[in-house]
């Protein structure tokens, strides 16, 4: 166990994957010389050279399009899009090309590529540098969508994403990059599609992912004082997502709340809540609560953003609401 940080775990996963498989290459803006805006690729240029660690021009569409062509030609590209908000410029490459090529080509080819997308607020970066758009990708057949919350998952999920033969949208939370945590000396690779019970409980199930996990755990702590035992599930994988683990927990607790940082309306939580309501109908003793950002662009001012991002209090309130 070495103590590490979320961003260092990403960095180590990239480094280990590149060492293990020379077909893995990196592309992105200022990822080579500068080591990335969030330093996730620091040192990799020196380690693997300019052929495999490529600083690109500011051309998101062509970068991701090139990744698809490279993935169809023997490489495993890992692309960094500096802020998830900029993936709006690369949606054709991701959605019309990467996601569909294997299917469209009759299964002749796979598209082994990863697009790393830092999402989320907390940096007062404003409306165009803070969005959580993962729900878009979860809706697209052919893409897989992962979002690690812990230092260990940042490593193990990224290794799994790079090993995966299909295109993976890898969502990282900017506010977590500096977070400290333990990383085993020989960290493993995760199984895509498996959730993790982050905290066991018996009264209510809180389903979450990404940075919101920590608000959920905080809320769970606080709820103990109110005599409420909260089970917290970290999805880790959003597409596919671990229905079995979620439904099994709800069968035990009979109550559920889904929480994430993304805008609540038409967010990831809608699908989770709908499936719990449909397949867990008989288990439910209360409506499935949903916690997410209010329906507005991410505001800049501290006083606004701090209220925009769902916090432990919001989760606590939602949990208590389904227990009255």
């Amino acid at each position, binding site marked *: 166990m070495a103590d590490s940080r979320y961003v260092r775990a990403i960095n180590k996963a990239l480094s280990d994957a590149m060492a293990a498989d020379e077909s893995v290459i990196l592309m992105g803006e200022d990822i080579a010389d500068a080591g990335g805006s969030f330093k996730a690729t620091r040192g990799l240029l020196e380690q693997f050279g300019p052929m495999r660690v490529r600083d690109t021009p500011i051309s998101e569409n*062509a970068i991701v399009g090139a990744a698809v062509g490279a993935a169809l030609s023997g490489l495993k590209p890992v692309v960094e899009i500096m802020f998830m908000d900029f993936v709006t410029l690369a949606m054709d490459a991701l959605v019309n090309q990467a996601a569909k090529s294997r299917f469209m080509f009759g299964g002749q080819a796979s598209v082994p590529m990863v697009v790393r997308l830092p999402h989320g607020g907390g940096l007062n970066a404003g409306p165009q540098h803070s969005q959580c758009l993962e729900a878009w990708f979860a809706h697209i057949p052919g893409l897989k969508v992962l979002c690690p919350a812990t230092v260990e998952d940042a490593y193990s999920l990224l290794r799994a994403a790079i090993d995966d033969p*299909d295109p993976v949208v890898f969502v990282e939370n900017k506010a977590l990059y500096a977070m400290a945590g333990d990383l085993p000396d020989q960290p493993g690779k995760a199984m895509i599609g498996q959730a993790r019970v982050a905290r066991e409980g018996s009264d209510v199930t809180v389903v979450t992912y990404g940075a919101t996990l920590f608000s959920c755990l905080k809320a769970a702590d606080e709820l103990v004082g109110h005599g409420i035992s909260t089970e917290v599930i970290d999805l880790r994988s959003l597409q596919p997502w671990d229905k079995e683990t979620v439904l099994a927990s709800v069968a035990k607790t009979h109550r559920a709340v889904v929480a994430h940082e993304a805008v609540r309306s038409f967010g990831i939580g809608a699908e989770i809540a709908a499936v719990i309501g449909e397949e867990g109908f008989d288990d439910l003793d209360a409506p499935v609560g949903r916690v997410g950002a209010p329906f507005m662009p991410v505001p800049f001012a501290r006083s606004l953003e701090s209220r925009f991002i769902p916090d432990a209090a919001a989760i606590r309130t939602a949990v208590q609401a389904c227990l009255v």
Partner: protein
Amino acid sequence: MKRPAADKHIGGNSRLLDLHRTMLLVRAAETALSKLFADGEIPGFIHLSLGQEAVAAGVCSALAAGDTMATTHRGHGHVIARGIDLDGFFKELMGREGGQCKGRSGSMHVADMNLGILGANGIVGASVPLALGSALAHQTRQTGHVAVAFFGDGAMAEGALYEALNMAALWSLPLVSVCENNGWSEFSPTARQFKGRLVDLAGAFGIRHILADGNDAEVTAEAAQEAVDHARAAGPVVLECITTRWRGHFEGDPQKYRDADEMATMAAGDPIGRSRARLAEIGIAASHLDMMAAEAEALVTGCVDASRADPLPDFDATLADVYTPLGAH
């Protein structure tokens, strides 16, 4: 169905004969497609390259095994010239189980990974970043291969082309960007949509630009060879082939927007007429040339019949194949 081999016995002229044969095959295939579409035997919509056969034959004649290519919605000629299994091609367009893509893609996404065909594409301009990435793979993996991007003149307006040209120049990638310039973007003359000149755009990035008469197979083949050699040795190159779209944007397009003379004079530039005349000049018997055309048509007829007999794709098997099956990799 196997294709007839090149007439090696004719020696020095074998290349022109091969080009001619390839064009005859594209011509026969698309002539059949036009009829099949009119008869409702082909679902969706198809964009034919009749009149543009010399570009497909010429460019693909310059490619070696291992070279890759990405093409467009008007890509039938390219994939046939590259050697795609004609049987699987027809079955695909007719939506059959035995289709090259199991009936999931139709005309606009035909691909053959064994031939390095990274697919036709329904998104205008998308072929260029795809080929760029393939060229990047060739460079990184030191395969010595080149990647070809076919795109139309209308696609020049897409930023994807521009971004890709810059990256190709920046990394001096073995990318051959082939502009199939037929003057039309759907129902509009491209001149009414795009003000740039490709030669100047390429020049702005220090990329070599080669212009060719895309209605002459030999000229195109030579230009393509030059372009491919340049890409292999020295990095990106743009090959612009001036050619003629005979049919509508898609089958069923009445082309009211084209004036009579253009339609009338079109046939004059027929690339197949030209190569046939030249072959006749150098003494290839008309009977032999007729036989070649007949062979192509027979090949196509066989594929069409086989496609009609082919079963329809199974839904559940299709649904199960969205992601790579575990263990397949």
